[in-house]
Every structure is written in C-alpha cells, then in structure tokens.
C-alpha cells in the first residue's frame, strides 16, 4: 500500500501505550490509515478515544509517560518511528505542522504574537529578521486578520479566540507544509467563527494543495470537511472509509450512534438527535472482543469473541463489526 506517488503518510498498526495502575493501557491499538496528497482525512470519536494521541505520535510528541509500542509511520515512503529524533524534528513545523484545540493556551502568553511568528519564520523558514516580519504580516493578511502590524505587537490575551486560531493557522502554514494536523481546531470557538475557520482551512488547502488530518469529536465538522473518515473508539478503529459512504451507509453500530447523535443542520421533521447511551469506555477495563459491547444496542454473545480489526474484504470501507445484518 505504501510508496504510491500520491501517498504522503501511511500509518500501520500504530499502538501507543501508557503505564496505568495494574499494567498498561493502550491509547491507540492497531491504527491503520493513509493520507494522500491534498486530501483531508478525519479522525472522529468521543474524547479519550485516542485520536489526539495518535495525531501527536505523527510528530513524535506522545506525551510522557506514554510511548509508541508498535507499528510504522511512513512519511513519503520513509519510516519515521525508527528515524532519529533529529530527523523527526526536521519535519516538525516544516513539512508537517499542527494547530490545536485551544488557541488561548497554545500561544505563549508572555511573548507578543509577532515575536512568536517571527521566531518560527526565522528558525523554520530560514528568513532574516526583517523578511520574517514582512512575511508574518503577509501571512496574517492571508488568514484574514486586518491590521497585521497591530496584531504583531499584540499579546495573545489581547486577541479574541477566533483571531488567535487564525494566528495559529498563519504560523502553521508559514512553511507551506504538505500536511496540516488539526486537533479539534474549532471546538473552543463559537459556531460562526467555527464556520469561518473551516472555510479558511479549505481555502488554504485549495491554494497550497496541502493535506489535512483533522481530529474532532464532532462528526458534523468531519463530514463537512473530510474526504475520508476514520472512526475511533477506545483506542481502536471501528470503521473507516470515504466520508460520503460512511455517512450514507454506516456499518458499525457506533458510527450509526454518532450520526444519530448529530444535530441536524436543516430544520426538518425528522427525529431529534439521540445521544449514545452509557458511559465512555474505561481503557483499563475493556471487555474482551469488541470494546463497544456495553453500549451497543445490537450486542450479542459473539461480540466477546470477535477480533477487533477492520474487515478488509469490504474494499475502501471497512468496519470492525461483522454483524451488518443486525440493522433494524
């Protein structure tokens, strides 16, 4: 599967563990997905499903004390997990960059926006001080911030949440990355700003042809933006495929639950959103077999025995649930 011309990123069997009382918990367990040039892939699931840690592992930033236990990450054909820390670091902020959920807390509060932008441009794009400043203003202009001069002199707390996220985006696109990792980029923002930020991302993508790996708990955001989608639950992949197919004909009961829980954008007479019942999974005490059993409406005895792996026979749209027929 690796090595095709359009392939940017290929993740296989990615397994990330954290020490926990009584052993080990797997925050990601056997994750496989690809990102092709210029495409947008979404990782979706409830909080704690391992999507954020998966995203961080791509930059070699799994938070201590966790670590990647198994798997491979190929970046443009090159295996990155076994590469040196130095090699991994050269990708960060140049070919791959990242934006975060909370723009309030991901800019250093004691330095001005300009200081942090110029610093990144000088270190990562190799610009001189003056060039970096000019470029910083261009970038701010490009992400739709007016009066860039004034913004550069501002401290992060002097900007609104939406403005800060635009600054983060400006920093992240500064080096024209091939892949942008976006960790819940709109979750902390109000609905209007959310729409604007997503539109901005799409626009930048259309201009630069960068790929986006978008992580969100909000299937609405994912389906609006993504070409492909990976559904995660308790560190496992439960379903993956083209966004349109997954949305139109979900195969896993969990995916269906997520779709039913989505507030509908159009005002219709359809049934109101139904949240998925039950508690989010406890990663230290998962049942054998399918992790979704305790909350699944269609649970049956065999669920405890199935291996949790995507059914590869279903080309381009895999599901970890072999009981498709259970649909009511």
């Amino acid at each position, binding site marked *: 599967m690796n090595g095709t011309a359009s392939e940017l990123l290929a993740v296989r069997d990615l397994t990330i*563990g954290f020490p926990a009382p009584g*052993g*080990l918990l797997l925050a990601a367990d056997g994750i496989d997905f690809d990102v092709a040039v210029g495409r947008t892939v979404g990782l979706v699931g409830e909080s704690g499903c391992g999507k954020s840690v998966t995203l961080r592992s791509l930059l070699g930033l799994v938070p201590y*004390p966790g*670590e990647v236990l*198994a798997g491979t990450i190929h970046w443009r054909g090159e295996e990155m997990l076994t590469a040196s820390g130095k090699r991994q670091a050269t990708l960060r902020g140049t070919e791959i960059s990242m934006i975060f959920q909370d723009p309030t807390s991901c800019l250093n509060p004691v330095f001005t926006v300009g200081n942090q932008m110029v610093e990144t441009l000088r270190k990562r794009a190799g610009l001189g001080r003056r060039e970096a400043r000019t470029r910083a203003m261009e970038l701010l202009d490009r992400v739709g911030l007016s009066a860039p001069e004034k913004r550069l002199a501002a401290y992060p707390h002097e900007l609104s949440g939406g403005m800060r996220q635009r600054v983060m985006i400006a920093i992240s696109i500064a080096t024209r990355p091939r892949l942008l990792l976006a960790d819940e980029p709109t979750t902390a923002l109000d609905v209007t700003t959310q729409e604007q930020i997503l539109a901005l991302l799409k626009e930048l993508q259309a201009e630069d042809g960068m790929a986006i790996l978008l992580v969100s708990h909000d299937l609405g955001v994912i389906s609006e933006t993504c070409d492909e989608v990976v559904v995660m639950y308790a560190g496992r992949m439960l379903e993956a495929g083209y966004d349109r197919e997954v949305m139109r004909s979900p195969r896993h009961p969990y995916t269906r639950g997520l779709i039913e829980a989505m507030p509908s954008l159009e005002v219709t007479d359809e049934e109101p959103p139904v949240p998925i019942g039950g508690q989010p999974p406890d990663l*230290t005490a998962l049942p054998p077999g399918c992790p979704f059993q305790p909350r699944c409406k269609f649970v049956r005895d065999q669920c405890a025995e199935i291996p949790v792996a995507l059914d590869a026979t279903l080309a381009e749209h895999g599901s970890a649930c072999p009981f498709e027929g259970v649909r009511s």
Partner: protein
Amino acid sequence: MSADALGLKLGGPGGQAVVARLRKRAAEERRWAKVTLRVGIAIVAIVAFVCFAAPLLGFADPNQQNLLGALKPPSLEHPFGTDALGRDILTRVVYGGRIDLTFAVLTTIAAFVLGTLVGAVAGYRGGWLDTFVNRLVDTVVAFPFIVFILAIVTITGPGLKGAYIGVIAVSWALYARMARAEMLVEREREYILAAKTLGYSTRRIVFRHALPNVVRASIVFSMAEIVLNILLLSSLSYLGLGVQPPTPEWGALVAEGQDVLLTSWWVATLPGLVIVLVGIGFSLIGDGIADRFGRDFSLSGGE
C-alpha cells in the same frame, strides 16, 4: 487492556517485556518517596535517641575539661576530637542536641498550634478579626525573621528564653496565613455548609470538620520549619545572643571552634555537620510526607 492481551498482540514475550519496562519505570519513580521517608525517620530517630539516652550510653559530663588533652584530632577515644579546653566534642554535641532538638520541636509545635488556630478562626469568622489577624501577620512577615527575633532578644536579654519567645512569635504568622487561606476555601465547601444547616456550632464545624484539611499543608511545612528553627537557635548562639557558654549547643560549638579553624578543623566542622545531618533528616521526612499527600509543597512557605 491487560498485559496478557498486549502480549498476545505483540507476539507474547515482546509485549511482556514492554509492560515490564514501563512498570519498572513507574516503580522507580515511586521508590524515592518511600526511601526518603524511611531514611529521614531513621536519621532523626537515631540522633534523637543518642542525644536523649546520652547518660545511659556512657556519655559523661559535657563540661569535663582536660587541658592536657586539648585540641586532639578525632580518634577512637574521642570520635569528634577535643576542643581548646580538652572537652570531648562528641559528648558536647550529644548534650547540645538535647537543647537544639527540644527547642526545634517545641517551638515548631507551639507555632503550628497557635498559628493554625488563629488563622483558622480568623479565616472562618471573617470580619474585623480577620482583618486584624491579616494585618498582624503581614507586619510580622514583613521583618526579616532574624531581625524580629533579635528585637525580642533585645527585650528579654540573651538566652534560651528570648530564642523561644522570638521564634514562636515569628513562626506562628506563616501557619496562620496558610490556615486562613485554606479556611477561606474550606468554609465554602458543601460539607461545611451542610454541617451549618444541621445546626452545629461554628466552633464545632471549624474544629471537627475543616481543621484536618487545613492541617495537611502545614504538616509538610512544619518539617522545613523544624530545620529552620534549629538553624535559628544555632545562629543566635553563634552570634552570642542565644545559649550562653559553657552550656553546649550546636551553633555555639561551631562558634567555639571558629578561632582554631585552620589548625583544628574538627572543632567547628563536626558539630556543624551534625546540624546538617539532622536538617537533611527532617527535610527527607517532609519530602516523603509531601509525596504521600500527593502535592508538591515548596520547601519553605516564604518568610
């Protein structure tokens, strides 16, 4: 996810090895807390035992002079050597320890109890009492503590009495400040409000329910305070304003050895190192307790 399942996934032994490695790392990090507490308690217990059981252990009069055997270096007979008057330094350290340890523990307990009560009551009651206590604390804390203690020594005259009064008069303030701060948080907690609606008296609520929580932070702090109080008494004696000669006291012993430092290093140094040892002992206990309480308290609350 259990270790077995991972072992299965990674092909058995490999998975087990990963789990073992991660577990070992976690265990190593926890070990420090256990070791510190035990080592600290051992140091303090041994020193305290030797000091207070001194006559039983064969330590004779600390002021016994032997001018012919003056300034002898450490030997089997005199493990810490002898001073300018031929007195056995180890004996003097052991008897001096009684004064220092008693002083440090008593002043710490007194300041702890006094400060915590005053702070807790002020924080709970609020109003003019709280304002008054707060201002008083601010004023006491505004002085460099040694200046405040020296001022009190001015009033009482040099000696152990001045040191006792001075140290307690200074240190209560920090406990009061901590207790007050915790109390302001505690009194808004639900269980306090619930106890109030059940009709318990104010005093009962403060003392029975909130105090245990208030006390926790102070306990860790008090371990650092014991060290500080030993240092204070020895500093005062060193300056000639604390325990008066010939009574042995650790700081005074260091001062006595100062003049013969170059020729007879042991006279000042060995008693000094005992201070350091005991100080480390109490610090280790404080560290161990802090880890157990699960919060990283600072070494000293700040005076």
